[in-house]
């Protein structure tokens, strides 16, 4: 168990908790992106470059973007009832 691996696991645990504790949804979208980057770094260390690629493209870019888009439309949307 190398120090680098331990460090990455702790980093992921921390950023994951950050996603939960960021109660303000906009800040949470950012936290999700940060968590995505941390996860892909961990995956690189775990010798899984394929997975790291898709985590960086999906977890750190696409998913936070979808979150932001939904938050914007929740704000602009005026419910009829």
């Amino acid at each position: 168990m190398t120090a680098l691996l331990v460090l990455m696991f702790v980093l992921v645990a921390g950023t994951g908790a950050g996603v939960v504790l960021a109660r303000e949804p906009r800040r949470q979208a950012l936290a999700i992106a940060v968590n995505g980057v941390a996860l892909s770094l961990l995956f690189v260390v775990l010798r899984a470059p394929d997975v790291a690629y898709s985590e960086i493209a999906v977890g750190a870019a696409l998913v936070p973007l979808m979150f932001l888009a939904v938050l914007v439309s929740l704000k602009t949307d005026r419910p009829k009832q």
Partner: protein
Amino acid sequence: MSFVPWATVAWLFAVGIYGVITSRHYVHLIGCLTVIQSATYITLLSVGYRFGSVAPIFHSRPPSTPAVDPVLQALVLTDIVVGATVTALLLALTLQVHKKRGTVNPERLRPMRQ
């Protein structure tokens, strides 16, 4: 030290569940679900890891080099698709329910109790 990956997984599961049961905003709740999901990625990849091995890609090295498990990496790729699609579906549901009910607080979104 060998327990660190499993402790991380247990921690992410626990903290994600904590977020889900206390959430007051559905978008936040969905974010917490992605945290639990990331725990499953870590479990799978940790099981497939092996000390002193290379990634299972033999483009620039001989195929006899000891490598980590490629099967679990393929499984995690599938898992990531699952996660992204379910997240998209949940976000779309949230958006629509907000149009109908005017709130995204999970406590106030109870089917057939309005």
